[in-house]
């Protein structure tokens, strides 16, 4: 069963992260690299992508004639998707375990960030007979 693990954060949170020390950033990168490596080796990693920063985020609606109308620069408090992992695992518990590992990723001084990770199951296309 496939799950998507969503890492959300605010603009303020991203700004704080950008002000981390070099050592803390390296520690965090090393952590992510080793997590992805483990998920690759366990045959569970389907996809992982970081997303562009909140400054680049735009909300688009169709205006007249269907032309795109963009809206951007959002309030500090708004939550943004920062990145996601898609994993193919044997059980929901395993997805939660991976999410928890993401959540304890090291922040400043190596203290876990404890970021909330939203876990959502990806719908399958198979179906039982009705």
């Amino acid at each position, binding site marked *: 069963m496939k799950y998507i693990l969503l890492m959300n954060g605010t603009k303020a949170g991203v700004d704080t992260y950008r002000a981390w020390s070099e050592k803390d950033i390296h520690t965090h990168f090393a952590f992510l690299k080793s997590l992805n490596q483990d998920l690759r080796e366990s045959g569970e*990693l*389907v*996809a992982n992508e970081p997303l562009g920063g909140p400054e680049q985020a735009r909300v688009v609606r169709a205006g007249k004639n269907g032309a795109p109308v963009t809206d951007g620069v959002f309030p500090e408090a708004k939550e943004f998707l920062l990145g996601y992992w898609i994993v193919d695992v*044997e059980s929901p518990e395993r997805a939660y375990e991976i999410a928890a590992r993401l959540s304890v990723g090291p922040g400043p001084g190596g203290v876990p960030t404890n970021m909330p990770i939203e876990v959502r199951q990806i719908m399958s296309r*198979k*179906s039982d007979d*009705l």
Partner: protein
Amino acid sequence: MTEQPSDIRFEHLLRELAPQVLGAIIRRFHDFAAAEDAVQEALLAATLQWPREGQPHNPRGWLIHVASRRMMDYLRSEEARQRREAEAAFPSGCQAPEAGIENETDQEDTLTLFFMCCHPSLTPSSAIALTLRAVGGLTTAEIAHAFLIPEATMAQRISRAKASIKASGMPFRLPTSQEQAERLRAVLHVLYLIFNEGYTSSTGPHLQRLELSREAIRLTRSVQALLPEDVEVAGLLALMLLTDARRAARTGPGGELIPLTKQDRTLWDRAEITEGIALITAALAKGSIGAYQLQAAIAAVHDEAARAEDIDWPQILALYELLKRMSGNPMVALNHAIAAAMVHGPSKGLELLRALDSDARLAGHHRLDAVRAHLLEMAGDYQAAIKHYRIAASRTTSTPERNYLITQAARLSESAPSSNRGVDQAL
């Protein structure tokens, strides 16, 4: 001659030969993981070479020869210790084996590979992947594509599965007669999972997916050929055929699910139904009844009815009663409740469902709500039916099922106040 493009003809032959060739290489070199890679390389070489140069006189011998060469290359590139082992195992160098045809060893090897790849110590997803590759002769890319995951991820899953077989020190031989029944159950379960994985909506973006259901049928057919006396193997093959027969009718033009009783029965595959019924009839006559046989018998009763009104529900109910006693699976209990409702009316079915409310295995499961919604609709309690269709829709993890359930709720809420249709919409 045949009108099939030659590469498709070769592909069928290659995949039939794959487990035999693998068995021969494992016997010679005693290294399952490396042998499996070598055989894949030989299969690839054949798909490149045969269409150009024609099929060799002895295809099996050709593949064993090429795979053996690959094995030798692999072993030569290893440490000296391993090189010595190779020479002990294959002292005469690399020679083409005798032009033997299929023999008892081949058959035993294929069966041994099934037992190995479906070993209960492997996770289901690993066992599925390994079976498709080592016994089915599929490439890692094909398997990855079928499961919608990256090839690298699937490759890793397969190599981990092989490593865990290696670590277990499992010998390449058939399980003992004491173990055989349990190990065969594991094999059949893996084949059943492969079948179900492929039993998807036949339209939409995944039309190009490898036909996993067809592959499961092919593999189950080969187990049945190897164990013709086993009634549960026959039961599983019959169940697959009788279910697959309805494939063309089970989805509408937009990919929407069509429930069994609403399907256009003229679209059902008569050849599969005939074969499935013959298999299950012969199996049941042998006297030892198992869960796959009962499920196949139920599918046969459905498939035998010319119209939905002709379905022999009392017989289906009796079969579900037997199956319920045998399996203890709550999904069986749900289907039993539907059959009871069809025979004794919806209130009987709803009463049976109330007994399942406390079953922890069904707690929060969409099927319980979906069945309750159907039975409430049959009983004419449309508001409650709508509520349960919507709860079921919020709980299912299948897109076609979710679409079906919200459509049912929408249909009822549009028509319920003035409608008195009930029974014919129930399933």
